[in-house]
């Protein structure tokens, strides 16, 4: 790990700092907040962590839409606790971004002004209660595949935040799958709901891993710096391999006629992904983009007086 900066008599030259940073990365050690880091590394991390935090916060909405209507009190308790966890994930990811000099309020403004992105998956609507289960199973499942390697990210605060996030996501995934299993044992209408939700969420969940590696603008640099550990395509493949057997146990059909086990590799082949749709949703033209942002804008603007009051009170009673 690099030396503390506090008792350093004079700024060493940039080349020496860069060499020390490169050595830390090469040794697979962690970069910590007070360590020197290249500006592009800092910026890239802020971008990635903020996008991740925004995804947690926006991700509260699709499932949150069912909080009032959950069909049993037990399901309501599970869902409320889950949505609460997502707010918690957002909070500690924003905190990780703040260790890099970012400011949560400023990042929130950038989300609302659409200057920063969040995962496109949350721009799809939740049409039935089966969507709650499918989000847990597929969306959280894909998130876990993406995020477990981030527990080893080169930036310490991010890596440590991800360990807790992954543990909770894993729990959410189990709960989602358990809901679907229960529904599949229920009525015909419930089984139809589950299949319909799988049909709608399968392809968007594959898109969660981002574009193919040869079309992913930030991937290569992120991999070099140890911020990312695997390419998008490898993670997507892992997700498919993990999910296909689970679908069989559940008794649902994944909506891809080309999905088949490749006997040579032991991995599943799947059909082409419609990247046009992905780009449309990413560009802000998905079914719910406007409504998702509008909700965050309202939370900020309608309650601005509350934040102002809390600040004024703290100053009066400092």
């Amino acid at each position, binding site marked *: 790990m690099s030396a503390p900066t506090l008792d350093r008599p004079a700024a060493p030259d940039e080349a020496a700092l860069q060499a020390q940073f490169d050595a830390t990365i090469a040794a697979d050690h962690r970069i910590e907040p007070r360590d020197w880091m290249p500006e592009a590394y800092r910026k890239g991390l802020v971008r990635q962590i903020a996008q991740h935090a925004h995804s947690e916060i926006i991700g509260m909405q699709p499932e949150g839409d069912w909080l009032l209507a959950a069909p049993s*009190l037990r399901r309501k308790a599970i869902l409320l606790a889950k949505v609460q966890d997502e707010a*918690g994930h957002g909070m500690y990811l924003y905190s990780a971004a703040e260790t890099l000099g970012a400011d949560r309020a400023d990042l929130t403004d950038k989300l609302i002004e659409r200057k920063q992105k969040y995962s496109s998956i949350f721009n799809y609507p939740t049409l039935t209660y089966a969507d709650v289960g499918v989000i847990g199973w597929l969306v959280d499942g894909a998130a876990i595949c993406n995020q*477990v390697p981030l527990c080893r990210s080169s930036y310490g605060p991010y890596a440590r935040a991800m360990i807790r996030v992954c543990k909770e996501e894993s729990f959410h*995934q*189990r709960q989602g799958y358990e809901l679907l299993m229960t529904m599949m044992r229920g009525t015909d209408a419930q089984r139809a709901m589950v299949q319909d939700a799988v049909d709608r969420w399968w392809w968007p969940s594959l898109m969660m891993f981002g574009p193919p590696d040869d079309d992913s603008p930030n991937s290569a640099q992120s991999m070099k710096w140890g911020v990312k550990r695997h390419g998008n395509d490898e993670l997507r493949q892992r997700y498919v391999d993990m999910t296909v057997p689970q679908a069989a146990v559940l008794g649902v059909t994944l909506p891809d006629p080309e999905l088949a086990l490749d006997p040579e590799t032991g991995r599943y082949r799947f059909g082409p992904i419609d990247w046009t749709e992905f780009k449309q949703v990413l560009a802000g033209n998905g079914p719910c983009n406007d409504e998702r942002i509008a909700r965050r804008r309202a939370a900020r603007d309608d309650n601005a007086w509350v934040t102002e009051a809390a600040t*004024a009170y703290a100053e009066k009673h400092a």
Partner: protein
Amino acid sequence: MAHEETVYDALDHAHGGEGQWAFGTGFDEPLAGVDTTVPDGIDPADLGAYCLMLGDDALVLCQRLTQWVTAAPELEEEVALANCGLDLLGQARLLLARAGSVGVLGRSRALATDSIPDEDALAYFRDADEFRNSLLVEAPNGDFGQTVVRLLVASTWRLALSARLRESRDPVLAAIAAKGVPELTYHRDHAARWVLRLGDGTPESHRRTQAGVDAVWPLLADLFTATDVETRLTASGVAVDPADVRDEVRDVLTMVLERATLTVPGWPAEQPSRGRAGQHGPELTALLADLQGLAREHPAATW
């Protein structure tokens, strides 16, 4: 095996091996394993009716707090209000299950299929006129100021009741109350801190919060007159006469509001509880439509 796969493996197998991670999450009803025998000299119908009053208060206020999730001023507040809602939901489930355990199910049991547990039969298959919550909890949230004022009033009142109910002659009710006391202490503390900040914050927050106080205050009239059920159960040592907590509630609210530089309105003229008699406003009908719609659409389903 790469390190991250070890992590994933650990996560994957944390809840049972064979990759069968989604199985075995059984469903125990809230009172599973608890002796639900009603002690001698207590009328089960009265006990059940009383549990519905307290349980409906918790369930309806949970719905109201949940409306803030994704709409709160700060992420910390999303978490805090969801937390209060979860606590109240837990109390509601226990109380509704207690009502069910003594056979107080009204029309709900006939409408819900056998596989639906009592707590859900009661929550999802009663109409507004069968709900026994006070008018205090069903009123709409208003803005954040009004919301925290209502939470302050509701948690102060419920805490005062629960603290006394720990001595109830019904051991199940006493245990549920004892579980609720630390939860409600937090709710009251959280709400009081916000009332202080907002009352003594900016001119706008003061004005809004005073308006919240003025909107909530008349609802106090619905809280302190005992129903016949409460009178009988108080005599048999099961319930608390709501009139007995009036002074404590008034003292706490007065202290917080004065510290917050807010004006304490005159105490409203008390009257027999409309909410406890099943006389509710259209707001409760709308709240129940959200709560119950899906469950009622699929009465034979299990979730």
